[in-house]
Structures are given as structure tokens and as C-alpha cells.
């Protein structure tokens, strides 16, 4: 259903959002094309949700320009919303109704005929593995099930763009993997996904391309592996020396790495070969309580760009 032309589905230039004197989004440029999986990565308060609400055509923009599916949300809000699916950060399900009724009434809001909504309800319940819960009250569902129901609900109008605001925040690891699996299937079907997250593993798994946001601005943009290549090293050696010790050790190992980050509980050595670096640390008579080698992640990219961690 994507636009035949090659125009971006979402195009923002100098997009701003303020609440009184507080500027949540301070001039961002974003383009999302059909079939892409696009992410906004950043810590809480980076302006991701405000951006998503503007893209969802529910929050008026404060400055810049925004076009969704070629339309202006200030003028064509209802037409835009008719063609996008929204999975908000907080569940907005009707907890007094059962699972299927939640889907059904939502489909009716889009003006779909009753028979068609009914058909889609069955398909979507199957897709999110909630068929056997169709008659259950929403308040009886687990967090992961509610999330899947919200995702099903956001697909009832067969949207051109699916917006997911922190799709797995608050879910336990197992429930997250089920949600990721479903989202990955949608991605493979060619659905354009736009998501926000403060989990770097989520961004790496689901996003073809992402922007890193911090304090209302975009600080980097690219594919996850490109960002890691540009802003970090291949590997990271993590060393733990005990409380208060880490900052004293840092100068002694500085020359072993491209860069050293001192975190409250550990040292990060940005290197190409982690094992080799750790061996050299030991050669110098330094004896960390714990050491490990891992690949660089988007977390490291964020740390490099902002000097802060994603999840605080």
C-alpha cells in the first residue's frame, strides 16, 4: 500500500516541539522511506515520544515542517491517522472490555464495515497469538499480552506506517522476544516500522537505520553497524577494579586503547582486540576483579556521543 512514488513517507525539516518554555524537540530533520525500519534511539527525555506524537498527527508541531504520506498533519490529521498504526508507550486499551471487543471497536473507528473488522480481528488475534484469549478481559492479561494486543490493534487498519513508542519497555526478557519476533515478521512483510527505544539491543535487532537523539536534537544517524563502526571500535574490554579504584587505574591503561571510559563501576577500553588488551593489562601488574570482552554496541556509540549511558 506504500506510495507508488519514491517520496519519503515521513519527512521532517527543522521539526520542533515546545511545551511552554520547555523545548522537547529542537529542530530535527528526518526522512523515512517505504519499507524501511527506522528508529529513534535515546534516553528518557530525549524528545522521542514528542516526535512520535507529532508524526502520529495527534500533537501539533511547534515549528519546522512535517509531511506524513505527503500530507500536512495540521490540515489532514484524520486522513493521515486513517493510514497509520500507533502503538503508544502506555497501553490505552479498554480494560473493561474483552480482548476481541477491544480490537473490534477500534476497527470500527476507522470506518471499516462490521464483517471486515470481524475478519481482521480473527486474523490479528492469530498473528499475535491471542486467539485463545479472545474472550478474556484485558485486565486479566499479562504485560506482554497487553502489548501484543496493542500491536494487533495498531494493525487493524492495515497501516502504511506502524509507529511503535517504546514497544517493549516494562516487559520481561521472554515477553520482549515474543514481541520482537512479531515485529520482525511485520518488517519482513514490508511494513514500514518507526520505533523509539532506549534499548540498544532492540534498536540493533529491528532498525535498518536510526537516529540517536539527545536533549531534543539528533546527534548521529545511520545504520546500526555503520554507527558502531564510525563511533566505536570493534571490541570493548570491560575491567572492574573495585569501588574508587577505577579512576586511578585509567591513566595506567590509557595507551592500550583508542579511548578509555570511566564508569562508576567499571572501565571500558575501546580496542580492536579485547583479549590482547586484557593480557597487556595483566602484564603491567594490574589485577582487575573481573574482566570481559564484548563487541561494541549502540550503547557505546551513545556514550561516545553524549558522555552518558542510555539507561540511567
Amino acid at each position, binding site marked *: 500500500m506504500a506510495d507508488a512514488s519514491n517520496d519519503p513517507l515521513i519527512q521532517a525539516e527543522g521539526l520542533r516541539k515546545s511545551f511552554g518554555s520547555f523545548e522537547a524537540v529542537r529542530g530535527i530533520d528526518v526522512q523515512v522511506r517505504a519499507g524501511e525500519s527506522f528508529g529513534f534511539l535515546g534516553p528518557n527525555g530525549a524528545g522521542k515520544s514528542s516526535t512520535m506524537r507529532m508524526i502520529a498527527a495527534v500533537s501539533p508541531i511547534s515549528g519546522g515542517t512535517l509531511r506524513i504520506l505527503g500530507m500536512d498533519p495540521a490540515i489532514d490529521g484524520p486522513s493521515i491517522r486513517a493510514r497509520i498504526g500507533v502503538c503508544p508507550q502506555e497501553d*490505552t486499551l*479498554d480494560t473493561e472490555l474483552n480482548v476481541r471487543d477491544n480490537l*473490534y471497536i477500534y476497527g470500527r*473507528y476507522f470506518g471499516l464495515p462490521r464483517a471486515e473488522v470481524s475478519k481482521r480481528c480473527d486474523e490479528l488475534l492469530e498473528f499475535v497469538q491471542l486467539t485463545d484469549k479472545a474472550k478474556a478481559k484485558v485486565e486479566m492479561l499479562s504485560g506482554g499480552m497487553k502489548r501484543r494486543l496493542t500491536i494487533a490493534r495498531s494493525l487493524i487498519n492495515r497501516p502504511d506506517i506502524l509507529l511503535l513508542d517504546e514497544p517493549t519497555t516494562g516487559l520481561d526478557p521472554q515477553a520482549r522476544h515474543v514481541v520482537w519476533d512479531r515485529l520482525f515478521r511485520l518488517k519482513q512483510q514490508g511494513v514500514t516500522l518507526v520505533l523509539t527505544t532506549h534499548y540498544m539491543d532492540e534498536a540493533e535487532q529491528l532498525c535498518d537505520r536510526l537516529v540517536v537523539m539527545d536533549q531534543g536534537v539528533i546527534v548521529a544517524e545511520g545504520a546500526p553497524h555503520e554507527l558502531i563502526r564510525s563511533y566505536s571500535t570493534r571490541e570493548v574490554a570491560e575491567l572492574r577494579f573495585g569501588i574508587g579504584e577505577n579512576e586511578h587505574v585509567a591513566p595506567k591503561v590509557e595507551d592500550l586503547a583508542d579511548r578509555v571510559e570511566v564508569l562508576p563501576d567499571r572501565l571500558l577500553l575501546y580496542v580492536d582486540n579485547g583479549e590482547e588488551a586484557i593480557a597487556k593489562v595483566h602484564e603491567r601488574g594490574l589485577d582487575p576483579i573481573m574482566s570481559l570482552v564484548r563487541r561494541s554496541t549502540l550503547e557505546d556509540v551513545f556514550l561516545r556521543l553524549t558522555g552518558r549511558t542510555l539507561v540511567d
Partner: protein
Amino acid sequence: MSTPNLAPRMIDYWAITYKRTYKASLISSFLTPLLYIVAMGVLLGGFIEGDPAKLEGATTYLAFVAPGMVAAQTMTTVFGHTTYMLMGMIKWNKIHDGMLATPLGVPDLIASHLGFVVFRVGLVTGVFMLVMAPFGVFESVTGTIAAFFVQLLLGLAFAACVYAFTAGLKDESAFSLLFRFGLIPMFLFSGAFFPVSNLNPVLERLAQATPLWQGVNLTRMLVLGQVDTGWATFNVAYLLVMSAIGWWWANRRLTRRLVT
């Protein structure tokens, strides 16, 4: 402000929501008027031997108080559907946020909610009037039918204003003020249970300025078949203006709250 042209899409929502509770609500719709009329009309009314000239044209206290109770019931039904229930939708369940992510807009949400409240008022007062009819309290059949439609107008006027009030509230604490200083004084002093002419002239004017009195007066004149055209026109105009202002205010308050 856009028009609520998509509101009909929400009919299924209200139907499904109502289907869950209609049995309980129907039973209470029958019981409430019965309890009222027995307690207030028959038992209490049995002690009241007022001069019929002072009962605004009613021949008995029962006939006097019945239309008053109908209008008062309309008001309390509205409050039940536009205070905590609405707060739940906006704030606690956030289902309004979910609705606004679809093509629906704030005017659709409000129009459909007000439509549902008027439907409920119609059902509750319809049953109320049917239960009261055998007590011989309605003099004029056409007047009684007209009085039924007055309840819908009275319901809309209250619903629009209380909706607007609730739409802007941060939390539910203001509801107790609304009930204590709005609903209860109006219920007691707007002429439902005694003629407002019993009050001193200043308080009488004050009572006649309340929305409920417009409904009480209209309902009573109609069911007794003694309509004063001047007063009736004033009462209807009052309720129409109140509906329009409330509706406009509700749109403004809910938009400010949810479209940020």
C-alpha cells in the same frame, strides 16, 4: 473546530460498553422510581395537606412531586455518566488517547458521549414515567410525551456542562465539591419537592436561575397540562443556550487537555 461527523463510528463502542451493564441498570431504572414515589409521594405526601392553590396547579402532593422527581432523576443520571466515568476514560484508562490515534477527533468523542448520555436519560426517565403513570400523576397525555422530550433536552444541557467541567480536571477531588455545592442543593431547592414560591423572594429568584428548575417547571407544567407559554419559552431557551455553551466549552477543554 471540526464537526463531529465521524461520531457514528463510535456507536458500536457505546453499545458494547452498555451491553455489559444493561441488566443491572434496567433493574435499578424500575426500582428507583418505585422507591421514590412510595417514600416521597405516597408516604411523605400522605402527611402533606397543602392548599392546592399553592401546589402550582397539582391537586395532590403526589402529583406535584412526581414531575419534580422525573427532572431530578434526569439530572442525577447525567452526573453519573459525566463525572467519574468520563474521568476514567480520559485519565485512568486513557482510552481517549487510543481513540484520538484513529481518524476520530475530539468533537467526535464528545458528540458520541453526549449522545449516549441522552440515550441513557431517555431510557431511565422513560421507565421512570411508565412506573409513575399508574399512580395517576399525569393529567395530560400529550403533555407527558412532550415532558419526556424535555428530559432529553435537560439531560443534554447538564451533560454538556458537566462534561466540560470534568474534561479539564486534574483529578477527581473537585467532584465532591460539584456534588456538595451543585448537585445536592439543586436537587433539594430547585422546586422538585416544594414550590419555590415558599422561599423568600431573593431565594426564589435564585432557585429559578438554576438549570434544574427550568426542567422541573417545564415538566410540571406539561404533565399537569397547564402550560404558561412565556415561562415555557424561557425554560426551553435557557436549556438550549446552556447546551450550546456547554458543548462548546467541552470541546475547548478536552482539546486543550488531549491535543498537546
